[in-house]
């Protein structure tokens, strides 16, 4: 790669954005930091949903379960071992790992199924976990778990930011890798992919584990930030609704779609929350329907395409 290519406007711009975002927690108010953090969270969650549903074509309606598993792993670790703020990174990482293990293990039986059967199975799995968590006192039951009240907003911001950047780079690499091509071949015609010698089950399980890992990390970090967890918040259906809405907003099956989509979406939902909190989910649902009606490939993709920008 030549110096000229490395110094292209796009790359320099990206580096500048990253530097600015790194300085942000030291110069702005808590509101801006938490707003940016929620953009990263929305982006990570949507991109992980998109990895499974957009790239591989297996629509998951229970993806919030991995967020919940990550959150519960971290919360249980912290409360039962009485851990302090110093253990932040380990516990968050463990949340992601446990979620990935669950994803991998769940994928093995689940990938016998295709289409709507798979979607409903994921939803059933999430609800199943919810019923277990809410009815088992050891996991906090209906009262939930309380974590030590520490102020970690700047750290929370940096964690989500790094996950966001890492995940974006990963997706960018994946798109042109053997792995990425295998996944998209599964989406286009799984039987053909299988008969061309692609071990589809292994690829699907790997993709599912990855798409479970990142929501798990986010769940772990989120628990530290909110310092409280109950089953309703952990396995909230709205988490997956948001993943779908953000992805649909950005562009299904694209790398940048969910990431840019998250930015537009969080700003939009911020406006919605402040103007009509009761109708928030109504508007979200309507947006999902309208976007698919008129721009089934996503608003961001649609707009960028009309500006003659190629979307990856």
């Amino acid at each position: 790669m030549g110096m000229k290519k490395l110094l292209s406007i796009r790359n320099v711009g990206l580096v500048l954005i990253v530097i600015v975002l790194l300085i942000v927690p030291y110069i702005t108010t808590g509101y801006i930091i938490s707003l940016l953090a929620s953009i990263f969270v929305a982006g990570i969650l949507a991109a992980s949903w998109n990895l499974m549903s957009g790239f591989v074509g297996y629509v998951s309606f229970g993806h919030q379960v991995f967020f919940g598993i990550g959150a519960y792993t971290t919360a249980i670790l912290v409360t039962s071992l009485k851990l302090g703020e110093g253990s932040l990174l380990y516990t968050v990482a463990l949340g992601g790992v446990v979620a990935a293990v669950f994803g991998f293990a769940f994928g093995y039986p689940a990938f016998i199924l295709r289409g709507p059967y798979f979607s409903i199975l994921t939803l059933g799995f999430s609800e199943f976990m919810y019923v277990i968590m809410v009815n088992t006192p050891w996991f906090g039951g209906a009262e939930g778990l309380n974590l030590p009240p520490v102020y970690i907003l700047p750290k929370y911001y940096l964690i989500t930011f790094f996950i966001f950047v890492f995940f974006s780079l990963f997706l960018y690499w994946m798109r042109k890798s053997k792995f990425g091509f295998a996944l998209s071949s599964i989406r286009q015609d799984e039987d053909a992919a299988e008969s061309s010698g692609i071990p589809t089950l292994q690829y699907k399980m790997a993709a599912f584990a990855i798409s479970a890992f990142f929501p798990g990390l986010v769940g772990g970090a989120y628990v530290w930030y909110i310092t409280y967890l109950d089953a309703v918040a952990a396995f909230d259906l709205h988490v997956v609704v948001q993943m779908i809405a953000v992805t649909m907003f950005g562009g299904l099956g694209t790398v940048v779609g969910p990431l840019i989509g998250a930015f537009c979406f969080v700003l939009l939902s911020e406006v919605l929350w402040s103007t009509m909190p009761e109708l928030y989910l109504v508007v979200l649902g309507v947006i999902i329907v309208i976007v698919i009606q008129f721009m089934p490939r996503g608003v961001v993709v649609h707009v960028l395409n009309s500006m003659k920008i190629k979307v990856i």
Partner: protein
Amino acid sequence: MENLIQVLMYSFFLGGIYAITAVGLNLIFGVMKIVNFGHGVMVMLGAYLAFWIWKFTGITPYISMFAVFVVLTLVGFGIYGLLKKHENNPDFELLSLIITFGASIAITNFIRYLWTSRFRGVFLILRSIEIGGLTISTARFLPFAVGLLVTMGLYAYLKKSYVGKALRAVSQDPEAAQLMGISRMNIYLISCGLGCGLAGVAGALFSTIYAIYPEMGFTFTVLAFCIVVLGGMGSFKGVLIASFVLALSEGLAGFIFGSGWKPFATYLIIIVVLILRGRYWTAR
């Protein structure tokens, strides 16, 4: 012991309502090959409609269910209107899932916004029947009887009438059916309308015995899908049996482990059945 018999009996009666819901979903699923994720929301809408009619005019849901059926059929046409545009899209299955998902989120929360999450219900005063020392509440028996009647009626209709035959033809082979002069679009429209209308009837019946609330639709979607999966897609008898099996196992789980574990039975059954029988569907 008597308690258990009572619980099992009432669960069994509930199976009649489940049957109507699941048959409606099965119709849409079998003919259009898509999952109407908003199916449970139709049940919820039917329940609320019957409730408000009862509240303001005093007409019982057993009469108003005909009106509910008509209204929900129209809603079903509307749902088809949303889906129609994407029929030839290669990602139709995915898009239809997400469209109905988005619509059901919007409708559920709109209903909550209008009428809050408060539990409501229709209270009918009906005399109980006593058979051999066992008290059978008519209020619980009637929905079951109506449920069976509607399901049987629909079965006969699909078996004998022209529309029924056309529906089955399209579900078996859409292209061949079209070559025989059956309008695929019309059949899709009919199946979507009929399926949603049936869900509405189920909701109207449900409102007479259980509390209704905006989020109930979601439970019904999963439940109905679970029944269809258990009974077999396109199988009338299977769905009927599965409805009762599921209702009974739910009641039993609630009786043994406490009512918080009730949904556990449903989800456990769906997970196990999907995984065990999965190969059977993908092989086809």
